[in-house]
C-alpha cells in the first residue's frame, strides 16, 4: 500500500526530503526537478526534524499520486494510499 508525493527541488524543501530519506521504507527518485517520495506503507515526516518554518512546511507538497494527506499540522505530515 504505497503512498507517494512530489516535492519541488528548491533549497527550502531540502529538510523535507532529507527527513523522508531517513526512513528505510521510503524510496526517493527524481521526475524532472521534482523529488518523487514513495513509502511502502504510510509516509510520515516529523516537521521539527525537517527544520522547516511554517510557511515552507505548509506549502512543500507539489503533488499527490493515488494518495491522501491525513495529517499536515505543526507536528507532522502523514500521507496514506487513497
Amino acid at each position, binding site marked *: 500500500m504505497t503512498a507517494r508525493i512530489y516535492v*519541488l527541488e528548491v533549497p527550502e524543501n531540502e529538510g523535507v526530503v532529507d527527513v523522508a530519506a531517513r526512513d528505510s521504507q521510503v524510496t526517493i527518485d527524481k521526475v*524532472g526537478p521534482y523529488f518523487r517520495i514513495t513509502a511502502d506503507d504510510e509516509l510520515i515526516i516529523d516537521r521539527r526534524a525537517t527544520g522547516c518554518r511554517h*510557511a515552507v512546511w505548509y506549502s512543500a*507538497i*507539489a*503533488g499527490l*499520486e493515488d494518495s491522501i494527506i491525513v495529517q499536515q499540522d505543526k507536528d507532522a505530515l502523514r500521507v496514506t494510499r487513497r
Partner: protein
Amino acid sequence: MATAKSVHRVQGVDHTAFPTFDPAGTVKFYRDVLKFPVVHSICAAGWGPQKHPDFIHFFFDIGNDDRIAFFYYFGLEPYRDAGAPGDAWAQFTPDVPEFFLNSRHLAIHVEDEEDLLEYRRRLDESDWPVEMQVMHETIESIYTHDPNGYMIELTRALRPVTPQEDLDAALTIDALCEVAQGEAPSMDKLLTRKAELIVQRAAAWELAQLNESVADSKLVQS
C-alpha cells in the same frame, strides 16, 4: 570603502495582491489575453490561529520584474451578491475574516535585510508600527496598515528565483483552472491533478532546459 546608502531605498512594486473567486477567469485574462507569464505559485494548506482555508497564491509578471498576485481560497464563497457594484474585495458583511481583508495589499521591494530593517525602524518609530515580520517561502516581509486602513508590505528576496519554480507555477495554474471549474474544488484534488501533470511534463521540461544550456555554452564557445 562602502558607499553610504541613500534615504530613499525602496525599489518599486514587488507584487500587488488581490483575492479571486474566479481563478480560471483571472488566468484567462492575465495569462491568455494579456500574455503575462505565470512566474510563481504557492499551494498552501490552511494553518494559523484563524480558521484559514487551504489556498493557492499565484503570480503574473507585469514587467520590470514586478508582479500581480492572486489568492484563491478553497471553499470560500463571495461575501456579496454577484450583481452588486464594486470589485471582489470591496463589500463586506461583518463576519468577513481578517485574512480576507488583508489579502489585498501592495508589497514594495527592498534590496536586502539591512534596508528591510531600516524601514522596520522607521515604522516602529511612527504611529504605524510594524504589525508582523514574516519569513515566507522565498521572501521576508514586514507589514502595517497605512492611515487609510490599506495594508502595506515591504519585502526582500531571500534568494533568487529558480527556473523550476516557473515550471511548478505553470503546472499549478493548469491544475487550478481544471479543478476550480469542476465540482467541489479542493487542495486534495489540485495536488492529485498536479501530480499527473508532473508525470506528464516535468522530465521533458528538464531535458529542454539541459538542451538550452548546452546550446548556450556552444554559443559562448563559438
